[in-house]
């Protein structure tokens, strides 16, 4: 057996380090989806009538839609009637961390992300989303002083209905796609961020999503609005407990950047990828993320480190409407064992002198299958638009696969497009070369993978870069020492 194969086989044996279930009493709706379920969710959330109507319209639209089958992923048919669409820890509306269920806090401690410590050490405000309901929000006061609104989506519906009404579905309409329609009908909670004109958000905003209830689909809704000249960096990170049944996650994230505004959205995702040998029980992550650079000189940047989930279907995108606006997509995706990912981005250039950059790094190990699917569209009015795309894949072992589907649609002759793509593998040659210099195979793989991901990792906020490396280690452990 080759050295390389051994390393891979060892990585196959590692269990999911974050697989545990927190025992908190939950309020859960019985499985099934119909008008009544949606009415119940809306009632529990004490939502205004217009929002209920919007949900119902989305639901009716969803009923007419077909689940998309074009992605290069394979999974058993999902029974949408077998999913429970609402689950909430019983304690709600907590004023401070002291009131948070100690079990929940212990969960975060296990994950290495204690709220208190984060609060004190890193200056990161944490809005802890735990099974659909926000249970703790810190740093609110400081943000309030700056005029920044950061909290749960449900609260925002109550406190800032006019903002929600104006922007909800404005970037991702409920008609957009199957999962976005489903999310619009049944979303339970999420985060809401509003940065007023000219404000540079004083801290990085962070939310930890965590799926904790068996058979409860997670339908998060996130909306970030950056007014003229404002600046915000938002961090999203996830880990989930081990499960036997597949869990569906269909979130929607909408970003709106006004004139001269910048939104930087970073994700580190490490949901349960399924049983290492069979692939059973992993999360299905079917997410719609899109931002619009609404006015001139606006800037949206997506950075993602995707190490988890059994099946990923995710294309964070930018609509570059304002002149001189900039869209960026930096991605590292890991598929190990039986993981499958079909991920990429869309850059839609509408405004003049718009610029987009795509850096995608895919790592496949075990029997992982990974697809980069990206679209760059230069519309007629987008004079002097520029795009640079670089899609690199690295293969570890012989049973995995990497696929690249770049779509380019240029309707304006002044566009400048650059596309680079490479596929390489961590070959026995490289490992032997490192071994001959006294470096173990594990350290060699780690070094090579980190070198490969460098261009993306450097885009992450400092404290997140550390976490990214840590989460990468969990998913490639054995092959990433």
């Amino acid at each position, binding site marked *: 057996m080759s*050295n390389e194969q051994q390393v891979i086989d060892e990585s196959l044996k590692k269990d999911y380090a974050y697989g545990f279930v927190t025992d908190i009493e939950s309020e859960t709706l019985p499985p099934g989806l119909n008008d009544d379920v949606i009415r119940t969710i809306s009632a529990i959330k004490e939502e205004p009538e217009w929002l209920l109507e919007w949900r119902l319209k989305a639901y009716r639209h969803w009923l007419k839609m077909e689940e998309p089958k074009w992605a290069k992923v394979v999974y058993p048919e999902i029974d949408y009637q077998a999913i429970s669409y609402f689950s909430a820890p019983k304690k709600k509306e907590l004023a401070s961390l002291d009131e948070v269920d100690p079990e929940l806090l212990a969960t975060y401690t296990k994950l290495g992300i204690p709220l208190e410590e984060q609060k004190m050490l890193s200056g990161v405000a944490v809005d802890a989303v735990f099974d659909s309901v926000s249970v703790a929000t810190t740093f609110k006061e400081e943000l309030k002083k700056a005029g920044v609104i950061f909290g749960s989506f449900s609260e925002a519906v109550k406190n800032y209905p006019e903002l929600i009404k104006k922007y909800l579905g404005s970037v991702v309409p409920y008609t957009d796609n199957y999962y976005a329609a489903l999310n619009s009908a049944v979303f339970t909670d999420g985060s809401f961020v509003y940065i007023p004109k000219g404000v540079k958000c004083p801290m990085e905003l962070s939310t930890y999503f965590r799926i904790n209830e068996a058979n409860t689909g997670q339908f998060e809704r996130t909306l970030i609005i950056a007014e003229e000249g404002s600046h915000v960096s938002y961090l999203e990170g996830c880990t989930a407990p081990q499960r036997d049944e597949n869990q569906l996650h269909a979130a929607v994230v909408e970003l709106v950047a006004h004139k001269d505004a910048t939104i930087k959205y970073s994700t580190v995702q490490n949901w349960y990828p399924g049983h290492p040998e069979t692939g059973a029980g992993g999360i299905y992550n079917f997410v719609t993320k899109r931002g619009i650079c609404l006015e001139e000189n606006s800037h949206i940047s997506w950075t993602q480190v995707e190490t988890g989930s059994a099946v990923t279907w995710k294309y964070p995108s930018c609509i570059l409407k304002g002149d001189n606006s900039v869209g960026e997509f930096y991605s590292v995706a890991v598929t190990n064992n039986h993981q499958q990912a079909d991920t990429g981005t869309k850059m839609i250039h509408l405004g003049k002198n718009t610029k987009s950059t795509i850096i995608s790094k895919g790592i496949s190990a075990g029997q992982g299958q990974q697809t980069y699917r990206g679209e760059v569209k230069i519309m007629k009015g987008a004079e002097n638009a520029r795009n640079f795309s670089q899609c690199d894949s690295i293969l570890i072992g012989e049973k995995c696969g990497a696929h690249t589907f770049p779509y380019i649609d240029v309707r304006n002759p002044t566009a400048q497009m650059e596309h680079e793509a490479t596929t390489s593998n961590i070959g026995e040659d490289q490992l032997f070369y490192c071994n001959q210099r*006294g470096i173990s195979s594990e350290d060699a793989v780690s*070094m090579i993978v980190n070198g490969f991901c460098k261009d993306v990792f450097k885009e992450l906020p400092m404290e997140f870069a550390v976490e990214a490396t840590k989460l990468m280690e969990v998913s490639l452990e054995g092959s990433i020492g």
Partner: protein
Amino acid sequence: MLDIKNLHAGVDGKEILKGLNLSIKPGEMHAIMGRNGSGKSTLANVITGREDYTVSKGDILFAGDSILDWSPEARSLAGIFMSFQYPVVIPGVNNTYFLKAALNAKRKHAGKKGLDAAGFLKLIKEKLIEVSMDPKYLQRAVNDGFSGGEKKRNEILQMLTLEPTLAILDETDSGLDIDALKIVADGVNRYRNADRSFLVITHYQRLLKYIEPDFVHVLIDGQIVKSGGKELALELEEKGYNWLES
């Protein structure tokens, strides 16, 4: 230092080395010469423990211990170094990082503390001068976009940094122009001392003009058929290998 006893070894079930004997003492420089396919590179790969090569008979002793069961990294840490015939490109990993990881693995093995970035940089700058390499190479990815000569100099730089007791130079002269050849040879010559041994594998006598071996061995069909002093290399240059074939 190195004792190879009746070594039979091969790759993919094919026997390439057929009873090779070789003994290298501390401070000695040995050259192995032979045609393509005679087993020269197989010998280098077997000594360094490359996975695909299997030893069916015989033994390799390093400083008195049989190393046949040792992993490639264990052999490296014990002091065996190979300058590769084709140095491997590692995209994305910068040369400094790679060298530092290698050096610190070795230091840790020896029970010493790893060098920090500043300490390492000081050390490496001195070594760079010895092989006339521009410090900018440190910032480049390992062997990525290096010319043939740069790759070989980089190998010698690694040797000087890791300070092995046995250095195997596998076809180090191939792909070198005369200036680079001199630089590499100077680096090797300066590194020679009473405790360090060398095994130089080469086609031609070219490199041996600059690095004078104590012993020259001729490898034909997996066996050493003739050994002699440095004058043997000149004889080979003149007569070729045919006269040695039975």
